[in-house]
């Protein structure tokens, strides 16, 4: 009796864990299947490389693709150097004390702030106070700040993973602190840091809320002329095509096509991160 009960418990937990995995994987594949099935017909050279026409129901999504690319690039230009710099300082230079502990908690909390709050913050600071207006630069900076905590935490983990004795060898050769970091720490933390950058940027590319108040436009008949111009972007385009358009049923195929492009973009970035992590693991195994 007792043994039977034990076996039942064993089976119950196995089933529960097994089901968890399946539900997770299944939902990913259902999403992918659904979007690919509905969007694949829309994908063509014209869709990717021409401007929208006729109430955005025809033509392509090139301005949106271009806008997303630019705004992600700007956010990267801000968040990558600042994020890596911050991670290096925290891990290599700062001493462990109450202040650094507070800073770390703050960074962790920052990554939990809802993206719409970043949007509001960006609107206040960049659009209004700095007077950049609704523009690529305001939106890029806002996204940059949003991705900072991700890049910092992942980079710091990567730096922590570099064995202490690499630093010791460097010092034993009379290396200065920066020399030791440059020659014996960064090269081995780089795959991890790059993973952090990619995860951060792929999140930035897919966000709608932070750019909503800071620079994205519903429709523009031209491409942005400078970093102070408004722009169109994939996630926002997806949002309007699926909820805001005057004839939603006609807009649906465009929405699916846009979703597919966006998801492929983000998946490609993530795939690249996975490859980098795989390479990193190989270095360690050697």
């Amino acid at each position: 009796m007792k043994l039977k009960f034990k076996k039942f418990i064993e089976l119950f937990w196995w089933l529960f864990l097994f089901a968890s995995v399946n539900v997770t994987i299944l939902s990913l594949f259902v999403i992918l299947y659904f979007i690919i099935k509905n969007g694949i017909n829309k994908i063509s050279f014209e869709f990717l490389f021409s401007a929208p026409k006729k109430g955005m129901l025809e033509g392509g999504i090139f301005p949106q693709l271009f806008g997303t690319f630019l705004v992600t690039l700007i956010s990267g230009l801000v968040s990558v150097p600042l994020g890596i710099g911050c991670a290096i300082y925290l891990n290599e230079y700062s001493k462990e004390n109450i202040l650094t502990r507070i800073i770390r908690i703050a960074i962790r909390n920052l990554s939990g702030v809802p993206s719409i709050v970043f949007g509001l913050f960006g609107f206040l600071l960049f659009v209004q106070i700095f007077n950049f207006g609704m523009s690529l630069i305001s939106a890029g900076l806002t996204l940059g700040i949003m991705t900072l905590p991700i890049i910092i935490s992942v980079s710091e983990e990567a730096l922590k993973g570099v064995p202490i004795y690499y630093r010791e060898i460097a010092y034993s050769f009379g290396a200065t602190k920066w020399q030791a970091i440059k020659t014996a720490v960064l090269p081995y933390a780089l795959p991890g840091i790059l993973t952090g950058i990619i995860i951060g940027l792929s999140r930035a590319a897919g966000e709608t809320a932070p750019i909503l108040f800071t620079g994205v436009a519903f429709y523009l008949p031209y491409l942005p002329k400078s970093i102070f111009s408004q722009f169109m972007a994939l996630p926002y385009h997806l949002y309007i095509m699926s909820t805001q358009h005057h004839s939603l049923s006609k807009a649906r195929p465009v929405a699916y096509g846009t979703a597919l492009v966006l998801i492929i973009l983000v998946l490609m970035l993530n795939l690249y991160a996975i490859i980098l992590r795989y390479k990193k693991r190989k270095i360690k195994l050697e």
Partner: protein
Amino acid sequence: MNNNVIISVKNFSFYYNEVEALKNINMDIEKNKITSIIGPSGCGKSTFLRSINRMNDFIPNHRVKGEILIDGENIYDKSVDVIKIRQKVGMVFQKPNPFPMSIFENVAYGLKIQGIKDKNYIYHKVESSLKDAAIWDEVKDRLHHNAFELSGGQQQRVCIARALAVEPEILLLDEPASALDPTATLKIEELLLSLKQKYTIVIVTHNMQQAARISDKTAFFMLGELIEYDDTEKIFTAPSKKITEEYITGRFG
């Protein structure tokens, strides 16, 4: 006073969190000799070794008292550039720890740190260092392979070559063979014996037979104190202190 003294330790104490890890050490280390440091775990022998190239600077809450003179210069003097000290005093660590890069790049590492860019010089230095470390013949055909492809003993000899490339006067070795098998250990020992013509070698070892085999002088440390320091032969045949004899004969430790 002996003219051959290269390292002179004078009333040297090392405190870690106000605990005295090294207690008033006085010791003269001679040039072109191999000096072994033996003693039970936690006796301060590694701390002592790392005091000679100031690798202990990174330990938080530490404090030193007294002097260590290298070529007559107190390395703990405020005016001393620690970077110069470390270029003069090379170090080989316990575990073979090449960087995950090619054999060539590993040996050239210290030269790169010193800012040497002359490719010709670097190439010749890498070659001569690998020859000095008695590993040239084994690696000359695969200099640009990853150093991790080598066996542990070979890796350790590459690490020794890496330390030699920057032409130190003194070579500190922290249990360099403790992670190696007996054959590889023997090779390292032969290597060290051949190196003492050019370098002064200070080696921390757990292995008393090793100290007896290769060193000219042996220092026995216990609980942070230098108990006895003399010619190796004397330490192993007729130690003047009873506790040294007990340790040597394996009654504790």
